């Protein structure tokens, strides 16, 4: 059972200093996440869900507590090691897509491979494959500005997938999309989770979106208040 745990959070706390005042964003969050799980983190704004996301995504470190990713304690690693882990093990999908402007879908998808010494020929193959996995064949050479919102989010998913990560993090992935397109995007996540056994963590405040996940945890004021 222990082998199947991909993420283990032990009593995470996070204190931000904003000028003179300290903001206690997380007050002890503990949770293990199974490999292949699809989990939604819910809660109102200011509940600490983005902070959990940033720590799990290795963009930030907890003030106290420990975080194990695939058995390795990452809460103490320096910035460069965290960057390596983001590059190898984690794929991000953001609410605002966060694609590079004036660049093609293909170039955007190749971006993570640029930082992992994959030869450019192979990088292109992997990127094309990832784009086809999200249903964007034939649109590889379109620029960001020529793509619709849904297509842009698909490119973002392809970019998150291209390095074959063990963990996919999505921060309000449907927030900027209409319901129909949002559902299509969620179907892609579900498919990736079920068919490719990729662990998916969603941050959302939309209960409908959260229904796509197997489990939901609810955060309020920096602690987990409920789970189902």
């Amino acid at each position: 059972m222990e082998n199947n745990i991909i993420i283990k959070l032990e009593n995470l706390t996070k204190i931000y200093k904003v000028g003179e005042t300290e903001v206690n964003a997380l007050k002890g969050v503990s949770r293990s996440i199974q490999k292949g799980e699809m989990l939604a983190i819910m809660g109102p704004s200011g509940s600490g869900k983005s902070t959990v996301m940033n720590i799990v995504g290795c963009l930030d470190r907890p003030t106290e507590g420990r975080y194990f990713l695939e058995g390795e304690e990452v809460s103490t690693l320096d910035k460069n090691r965290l960057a390596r882990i983001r590059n190898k093990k984690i794929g991000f999908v953001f609410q605002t897509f966060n694609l590079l402007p004036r660049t093609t879908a293909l170039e955007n998808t190749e971006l993570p491979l640029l930082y992992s010494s994959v030869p450019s020929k192979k990088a292109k193959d992997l990127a094309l494959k990832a784009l086809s996995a999200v249903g964007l064949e034939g649109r590889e050479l379109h620029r960001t500005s020529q793509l619709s919102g849904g297509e842009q989010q698909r490119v973002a998913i392809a970019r998150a997938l291209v390095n074959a990560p063990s963990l996919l993090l999505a921060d309000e992935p449907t927030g900027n999309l209409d319901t129909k397109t949002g559902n299509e995007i969620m179907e892609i996540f579900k498919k990736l989770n079920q068919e490719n056994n990729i662990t998916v963590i969603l941050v959302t405040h939309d209960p409908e979106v959260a229904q796509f996940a197997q489990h939901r945890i609810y955060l309020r004021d920096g602690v987990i208040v409920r789970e189902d």
Partner: protein
Amino acid sequence: MNILRTVRVSMRALGRNKMRSFLTALGIIIGVGAVIAMISIGEGAKNAVEERFTSMGTNLLFVRPGSLSFRGRQSGAGSYNTLTPEDAQALMEKCNAVQYVSPNVSGRVQTVYRNKNWNTSIQGVSEKFTDIRKWVVEEGVFFDENMVKVGAKVCVLGSDVKQNLFEDEDAIGQIIRIKKIPFRVIGVLEAKGESGGWFNQDDMIAMPYTTAQRRLLGIDYIQSIDVSATSTENTAKAVAQIEEVLRIRHKIAPGAEDDFNVRNWSEMAESASESMRILTYLLGGIAAVSLLVGGIGIMNIMLVSVTERIREIGIRMSVGAREKDILLQFLTEAVVLSVLGGVLGIGVGIATSRLISHFAGWTTLISLGSIALAFLFAGSVGIFFGFYPASKASKLDPIEALRYE
């Protein structure tokens, strides 16, 4: 991320803002161009001066009366006529490092040929003059020892004088009048060209010094002695021998100052080319300031670019770019800009230097060294001024960068 890929990524980033990239590089283009053009002017001037000097021979010495070098302390007519033709003769006989000597007198005269007249200088010299100055007689002949001995009324024209008095007419055998005295033209000298602007060697008439003394100037002393040493290496030895012989002849007590002065032409040449070298440094230095200003332009634009691309930096960091990768990317952009600017600047510099030599008529010389220097300088400017913005970019916090609007 390897260097080639980084360069490609940088080129793509610069290509997204072509106009701005070009304007940024313009500072470097102008800077490098100015450095190359300015150095080419300096080097050209230096080269021209050196060429003129060596064309007169590197083993050339001048003996002059002392008052010239002790101006202010020791002037007066008396000190001007200490040199005699016998002094010149003695140098020839007693100094084994001396090859040829030519007593020299000169003056300005009005010359007349038919309806044309021309104001020029006469050089009274010996028959060895052409050997000492390495000068070729283009038409006719130079006067010989006998003509010097008897003070023959013959003359050899510098090419400018020939042109002014005779134009295309044949001058050999014609009679010109100098102070109403008729002189037969027996030769015309080859043109040497202006000596870097300070005097025109071709605007003069050479004649036996004896003739010039008696017929035109009315003096029995000589004004200077041109000497050639047996070789360039022997010039110092020749100077020493000349000083020894003249001190004895002029009965100068040991410890007393010479009443004459020996100048080494190659030393004068060196000091002239040294001053040209200083001119080159000066011009290059002034131009380098503009290169520096161009560098500041790069820093300015890179800072703007970093601010504009904070979100891009955040995206790159979120997919795994390390500090080092971001630093390298922005640094490479700055260096690519300055190196491209450098390459274009070399072209601009060469073109400018050509235009200057074409329109202003100055000699310019583009050396590979100056190109390499300007190019390396441009590259270093890119690294130096690109570093601060690049380091600023690499220090960004990924979370804040991603959130940046």
